[in-house]
């Protein structure tokens, strides 16, 4: 069951107009109408996913009143380095050195995959408490001139602490549904930087080193996969759709979220999200919303809650849980490197 939550965002807010001023061929109206996004947060150069993960995790541990866990699972598409994994360093920086810690790669579905893994670990008796993190620094893998991606993605981190509990306790993870279809791998991809196309290969250019996304294919797949997965996960505990009082979908695109929620018949007042202000933060998006909703006391503990996500891979997943009875001090903390205040600087147009 979920026993605590926390989140972290970089302080630098990048508005749609900032992107236009930086030279991107688009407009605030175009971005809002197609994505629902007004701004996103980008990390300053030198800030890594691990930094955001540590800050979010510290908040989650405080929320849970925990000083130790038995396992750390970090879902991310954007680890600090290709090797080694980021999770062990995050664990050490949190004073958790010695516990098993690993990264999990399922792109935007990563948090739900990590939640399922942590929950299963506890059910198997392998752990009593698990720190589950979703953290991303997508600004490091974006081509600033690619309108299909650079307007959509932002940086951030969210985390929850899982502990063993009883099924009737608020926060219980009741059911999960996961799936994948590798035939669609090319729809969301960074081509270079892995073993198939090393980043030092002579043919590698900017387009290979940065995220590419086929928006049309992704939209259709996302709507179908999330809708079907959500229905399957609710069938397990026999929860009627109308009994769901809180719906948090992966913050991919407002129109995808609306399409899925409309198909499921989720009432507007039961839909929660933050895409307007932070964009698509991939694996971080669902725990960021969880922390915000908990901090603002928007959902009553025990409320039947549906989480659903879709991402590169292709991967998808859903979770049915009851809303936890937790205290979260703030919707998010911020992380910035020492030095000039990030919020005072002009957005960097990074070139990976």
């Amino acid at each position, binding site marked *: 069951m979920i026993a605590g939550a926390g989140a972290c965002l970089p302080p630098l807010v990048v508005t749609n107009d900032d992107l236009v001023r930086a030279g991107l061929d688009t407009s605030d109206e175009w971005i809002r*109408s*197609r994505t629902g996004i007004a701004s996103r947060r980008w990390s300053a150069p030198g800030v890594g996913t691990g930094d955001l993960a540590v800050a979010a995790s510290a908040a989650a541990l405080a929320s849970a009143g925990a000083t130790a866990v038995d396992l750390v699972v970090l879902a991310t598409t954007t680890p600090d380095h290709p090797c080694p994994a980021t999770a062990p360093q995050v664990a050490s920086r949190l004073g958790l050195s010695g516990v098993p810690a690993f990264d999990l790669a399922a792109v935007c579905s990563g948090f739900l995959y990590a939640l399922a893994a942590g929950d299963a670990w506890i059910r198997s008796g392998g752990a009593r408490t698990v720190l589950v993190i979703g953290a991303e620094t997508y600004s490091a893998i974006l081509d600033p001139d690619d309108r299909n991606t650079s307007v959509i993605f932002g940086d951030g981190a969210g985390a929850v602490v899982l502990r063993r509990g009883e099924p009737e306790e608020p926060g219980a993870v009741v059911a999960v549904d996961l799936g994948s279809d590798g035939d669609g791998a090319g729809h969301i991809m960074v081509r270079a930087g892995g073993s198939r196309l090393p980043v030092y290969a002579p043919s590698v250019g900017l387009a290979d080193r940065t995220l590419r996304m086929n928006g*049309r294919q992704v*939209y*259709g*797949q996302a*709507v*179908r996969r999330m809708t079907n997965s959500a229905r399957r996960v609710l069938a397990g505990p026999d929860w009627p759709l109308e009994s769901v009082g809180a719906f948090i979908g992966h913050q991919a695109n407002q129109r995808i979220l609306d*399409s899925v929620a409309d198909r499921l018949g989720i009432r507007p007042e039961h839909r929660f999200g933050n895409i307007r202000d932070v964009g698509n933060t991939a694996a971080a998006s669902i725990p960021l919303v969880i922390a915000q909703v908990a901090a603002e006391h928007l959902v009553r503990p025990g409320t039947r809650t549906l989480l659903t996500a879709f991402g590169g891979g292709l991967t998808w997943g859903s979770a049915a849980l009851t809303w936890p009875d937790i205290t979260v001090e703030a919707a998010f903390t911020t992380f910035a490197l020492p030095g000039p205040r990030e919020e005072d600087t002009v957005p960097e147009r990074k070139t990976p």
Partner: protein
Amino acid sequence: MSDSTSPPPYETLVLLLREKFEVDPQLIDEQATFRGLDLDSIAVVEVFVTLSEHWQVPLDDSAATPDLTLADTAAMVGAALDGRA
């Protein structure tokens, strides 16, 4: 879910455009394009997803472009239905 009493694909598409996308009925004809009806690329994929669900047939989202005519779209659904038969 469709059945033998369902209207043919073009009529289903017209109904969808009028009721879900609130398109002015006077603008709708077989040669109208989605762009001409002010539907952007995401809306066209949404049309495909909805038709695919209604008729229980697979439709290729990569073909969902704003320059498609309504007749082309209905023909795609018809071809998918023929393939299912």
